[in-house]
């Protein structure tokens, strides 16, 4: 390891064909990151972009991203959800600057090119030239066709009020993309009830975007890092649990049911378990089971590559991963409730939201550990991380004492990234 060539390897070096040892170099290269954007965000994959409840009326729009490309999610005059790229066909300007609003059409302020909400170019100033002193000056060439110069339109799929988009019009149907095992958990949360948006939290985490997915594919840490989880029994290694993946191992659901809160053998012999801890105000954990849970008190679903679906007792949110180069991502939390929630349930969801987000009693830790993993990776990219809890294989389990979901995601990552 004295050769500078191996200390700063040009590409990740895997030990054999498995994925239980993950080269630090998968997190540290801008070139590799661009390949990930191309293969995971811009081709053959669906990305989360919005909840329909954010754009209830014709003309309502929301600006967001697919990967690192700016897009506008808009409900057109016919009520259809459209997604168009926020890049003017003329000079490439990202013309939409507001993050939400209502428009009848999109107009780029630079030269007033105007587009329908579907992204069709409808008008170009001075297209036929400007008449002066009896002659026509300028104008677009006679063969200029408006129909050839619309905004880039993305393929759109909606399911129970959740909107996904893809730049790749040959992408498989969303339901096939998620696969039956994951679709069942998606449908449990989004079962057709209208959603009520409660609000947003936004944070920038200085770490590679994949680390956020790995954090929610890692049921090992919550009962160790997060005192509130282990002490109040919300997530700990002896809770009845199940880990489920799609056939390609890219998506996953971690399903768990709150169990004992007292001391129990190995799981509470950890520094983070505090047997005497009691809340001064128990309303933070005023948990009321809901019929749609069907038992599990926490289901955390990762839909590769862009979004995490959160149910932690009464708190539900979608967490959108928005990469910013290889070393950082924006993380946008949209908390919601359901149209049939009474005032007490809305209040409960809002109180429990104190556990989550960038300042949450639980989730603030996650951004911190991701930052310092990234620092470790950057300092010695020739090294590798371990994901060997529960063995070196990939498969569904009926417990949470395993890192199989991380191994599964990297099996898929290698299949896609190492393909010619």
């Amino acid at each position, binding site marked *: 390891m004295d050769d500078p060539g191996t200390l700063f390897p040009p590409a990740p070096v895997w030990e054999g064909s498995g994925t239980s040892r993950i080269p630090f170099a998968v997190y540290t290269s801008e070139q590799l990151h661009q390949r990930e954007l191309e293969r995971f965000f811009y081709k053959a994959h669906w990305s989360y972009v919005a909840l329909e409840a954010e754009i209830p009326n014709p003309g309502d729009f929301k600006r967001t991203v697919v990967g690192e490309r700016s897009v506008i999610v808009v409900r057109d005059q016919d009520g259809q959800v459209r997604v168009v790229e926020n890049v003017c066909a003329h000079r490439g300007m990202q013309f939409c600057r507001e*993050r939400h609003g209502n428009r009848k059409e999109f107009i780029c302020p630079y030269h007033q090119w105007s587009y329908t909400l579907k992204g069709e170019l409808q008008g170009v100033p001075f297209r036929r030239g400007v008449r002066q002193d009896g002659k026509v000056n300028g104008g677009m060439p006679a063969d200029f066709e408006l129909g050839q110069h619309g905004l880039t339109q993305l393929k759109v799929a909606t399911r129970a009020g959740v909107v996904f988009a893809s730049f790749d019009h040959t992408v498989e149907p969303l339901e096939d993309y998620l696969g039956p095992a994951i679709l069942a958990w998606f449908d449990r949360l989004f079962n057709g009830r209208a959603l009520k*948006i*409660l*609000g*947003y*939290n*936004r*944070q*920038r*985490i*200085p770490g590679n975007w994949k680390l956020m997915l790995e954090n929610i594919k890692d049921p090992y840490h919550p009962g160790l*890092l997060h*005192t*509130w989880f282990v002490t109040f029994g919300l997530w700990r290694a002896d809770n009845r649990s199940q880990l489920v993946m799609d056939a390609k191992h890219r998506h996953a659901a971690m399903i768990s049911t709150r169990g004992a809160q007292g001391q129990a053998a190995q799981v509470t012999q950890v520094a*983070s378990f*505090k047997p005497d*801890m009691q*809340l*001064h*105000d128990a*309303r*933070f954990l005023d948990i009321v089971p809901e019929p749609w849970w069907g038992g599990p008190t926490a289901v955390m679903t990762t839909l590769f590559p862009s979004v995490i679906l959160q149910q932690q007792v009464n708190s539900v949110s979608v967490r959108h991963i928005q990469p910013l180069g290889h070393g950082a991502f*924006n993380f946008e939390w949209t*908390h919601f409730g359901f149209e049939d929630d009474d005032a007490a349930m*809305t209040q409960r969801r*809002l*109180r429990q*939201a*104190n556990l989550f*987000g*960038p*300042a949450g*009693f639980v989730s*603030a*830790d996650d*951004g*911190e*550990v991701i*930052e*310092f993993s990234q620092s470790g990776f950057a300092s010695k990219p020739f090294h590798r991380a371990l994901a060997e809890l529960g063995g070196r294989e990939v498969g569904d389990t009926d417990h949470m004492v395993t890192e199989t979901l991380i191994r599964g995601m990297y099996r898929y990552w290698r299949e896609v990234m190492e393909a010619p």
Partner: protein
Amino acid sequence: MIDTALDYPRFLALTQLQARYAAAVDSADWDAWCELFTDDCVYRLVPRENHERGLPLATLSFESKGMLKDRAYAIRETLFHDPYYQRHVVGVPLVLRVADGRIECETHYAVYRTKLSELTMVFNVGRYLDTVLETPDGWRFASRVCVYDSEMIPNSIIYPI
């Protein structure tokens, strides 16, 4: 006509309460922070977007001094975080209303964060919307809502703003 007139002793009490608040949260005296509030206080840390769009979600939303004490305990005992200093620079309160022994006011703030071995950065910028009142123990916050402009939280917020 909304009454915004304050005599000097009450204006001094208001500014001293705000100064004591900044001193407490910048010196990591979380117990002192809790004691600047009434028992049934409100403390909220809210993105400006949610505030202006009427969305009820807050980054932190506490409804009692007990909840503040739970946060103080979490900072000391349960939240893993990178150690840092914070420093509040707080403007002069704009008095919005004086009624029933309560003062409502709005005050700009900027918070700087300094991590060990790192440069100081602007951490969180916004305004406080306060309701303060005089209790037998002195002036206290009945409500402090921090509405922050900062679009992106630089990873996490651990200490109270």
